[in-house]
């Protein structure tokens, strides 16, 4: 034993020495980006980071960021910035902007705001670069008669089998209201009105024994592919890339209504590389690069000019034709409601799901 442990210690010491050794001097500027990792970061690397870095002779370093606002806050408040910019959600852009954690930029100086109009436009602290749609998904090889609406999703008699839904109040409540007959564009309005959350929970209660709650995107695809659930709420990029890489025949019915929102680029308050970050963002939202990005990851483009560059087949899982059927995860109503009620509704939801 002692021989083994001595060898381990020697190995560990060597490893430590490697870690602590002063790094070789790098003269290149480094842009540090916090992103979600996984397949979306792979696509960003391929279409944005790689080409931009080599064209500008800089390095782009990626750090893992799972949308914990606390991570941005602790860096800005301690003045110890590790990241220059982040890829983040509308809710984080809004709070981070208000609380002084993200840089306010006069984006209209750098962009044509018109091209972002369909997805809610640029905000004071962020520029949208991809459009995620969560909608009704099923396996085309298992289900013969295609479900057309969320009411069909709720119809467990006609389409037997479990239903996969997101283990979260946000998005799931909007979907439940759509199933209860609320037009998608009105879902947030109904939810924010008195009794809205009760109505959503009551609707969820109807199919509760049939619900399989999923907690991350990969899980939703797994459930559909293995036949564990007959239908699921799923994000379109995940569905399209599963079809591509695993040769599946998953279908999405975005016409049933969907919950959609953007992912934004935002710059950390006090970043020394602000100018470079702006230049990067300009590069990432150019129509051509947006179209290339869609081809890799199959999320919708934020720049509407990119649609013109895509083929019909590439547009199949994109919400282009169903933008009017969206409950948007942006805007004053959405942000105000979830910022105020997010915590208390999550508690209610967790309690409801456990009962």
């Amino acid at each position, binding site marked *: 034993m002692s021989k083994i442990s001595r060898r381990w210690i020697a190995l560990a010491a060597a490893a430590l020495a490697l870690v602590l050794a002063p790094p070789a001097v790098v003269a290149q500027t480094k842009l540090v980006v916090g992103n979600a990792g996984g397949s979306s970061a792979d696509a960003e690397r391929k279409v944005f980071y790689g080409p931009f870095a080599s064209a500008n002779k800089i390095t782009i370093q990626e750090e893992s960021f799972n949308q914990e606002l606390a991570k941005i806050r602790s860096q800005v408040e301690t003045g110890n910035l590790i990241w220059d910019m982040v890829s983040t959600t509308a809710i984080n852009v809004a709070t981070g902007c*208000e609380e002084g954690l993200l840089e306010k930029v006069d984006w209209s100086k750098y962009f044509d705001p018109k091209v972002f109009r369909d997805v809610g436009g640029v905000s004071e602290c962020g520029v949208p670069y991809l459009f995620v749609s969560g909608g009704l998904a099923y396996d085309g090889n298992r289900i013969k008669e295609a479900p057309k609406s969320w009411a069909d999703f709720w119809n467990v008699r006609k389409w037997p089998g479990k239903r996969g839904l997101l283990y979260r109040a946000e998005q799931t409540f909007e979907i439940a209201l759509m199933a209860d007959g609320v037009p998608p564009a009105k879902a947030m309005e109904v939810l924010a009105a008195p009794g809205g959350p009760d109505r959503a929970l009551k609707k969820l209660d109807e199919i509760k024994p049939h619900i399989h709650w999923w907690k991350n995107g990969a899980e939703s695809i797994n459930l559909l592919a293995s036949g564990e659930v007959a239908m699921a709420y799923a994000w379109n990029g995940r569905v399209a890339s599963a079809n591509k890489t695993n040769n599946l025949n998953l279908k999405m019915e975005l016409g049933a209504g969907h919950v959609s929102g953007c992912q934004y680029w935002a710059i950390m308050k006090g970043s020394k590389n602000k100018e470079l970050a702006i230049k990067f963002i300009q590069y990432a939202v150019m129509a051509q690069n947006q179209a290339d990005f869609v081809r890799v990851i199959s999320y919708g483009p934020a720049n509407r000019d990119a649609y013109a560059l895509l083929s019909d087949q590439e547009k199949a899982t994109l919400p282009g034709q169903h933008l009017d059927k969206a409950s948007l995860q942006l805007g004053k109503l959405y942000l105000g409601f979830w910022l105020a009620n997010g915590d*208390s509704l999550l508690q209610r939801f967790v*309690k409801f799901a456990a009962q």
Partner: protein
Amino acid sequence: MLALVAPSVLFIALFFVAPLGLFLYRSIDNSEVPGWLPRTTAALASWSGEGLPDEPAFRAVAEDLAALSGSTALPLLGRRLNHNIPGFRGLITGTGGRVDLAKPGRMREQLIAIDARWGEPAYWQTIRRERHVVTPFYLLSALDLRYGASGAIERAPAESAIFLGLLGRTLAISLVVTGLCVLLGFPLAVTMAGASPARANALLILVLIPFWTSLLVRSTAWVILLQNSGVVNQLLVGLGLAQKPIPLIFNRVGLYIAMVHVLLPFMVLPLYSVLRNIPPELMRAAASLGAPPAVAFLRVYVPQALPGLVAGASLVFVLALGYYVTPALVGGPGDQMIGYFIAYFTNTAVNWGMASALGTLLLLVVALIYLALGRVVGLNRLAVR
């Protein structure tokens, strides 16, 4: 003597006791409200809490909010008060930018015109109650309690009272996992203690493998193995042992399997180190004195193994209490543990008061359990010799 101990004492004080104290203090810290609303909190101190306060209080809140307008303190104050009443954030940020101190007329009418909620007593009562630098609010919330409209402490409504239930579930899951680890770990450790060094090392490596595997890989592997269309269920159905797939994952069974898998080494290692030092002669002596194997085992072997058993069990129990990623990945909606909310409040909601209150609650419960255990077993026996 003192010089030898001083560095470690200093280290523990600086890097353990101090941060822990700060962390615990977070659960009652309320300096933001009186700090950012100095005039309002002073004005409300003399208010009875009935109906609406007088004009000076309206004037005070207007002055305080106007002073914060444009700074990041305004949304942060809103975030703080939103913990008490959902929607308070919007009231604060919405009023701060619009209030006009120079406008003639009563401030009461102006504020109510900006937002009708200034005419509701609940918001005023909240500021009045939170006017001190410390608050019991987070600890009460962690116990599913709150202040009612009358100012008395009452139970939170059933639909949102979740923390006591979560705490109970966390303790129950941890206890079962500890029990399973004892049942599986004890025979294994006994075998290892009696085996040749080479074989003991091989067994040790097998025990340690889950240790070296990343949490996500480990959990995903269990999903693939145990899901309805997974290897185990296909085998069971194929062999005719089950009519249809048995739900083995996304429920309590799956959670126990995954947690025991990870935590077993923490049971086996301390136990093994104790068992290895039990002289085999003692069992032989017991046998030569006429004790049947079962009696010798219970009266000679087990008492000597107890310190290892207790050390391993307490290690497993404490570690199990803090689990939240594994329950999220392999458990069902009825299997979430309190750590899920501690992480949520820390990372996503940035409500460190609540995170700290839940942590404090957990710490207190564990301390109580150990005190009780110490009474029953005797504290000196808990020490690993």
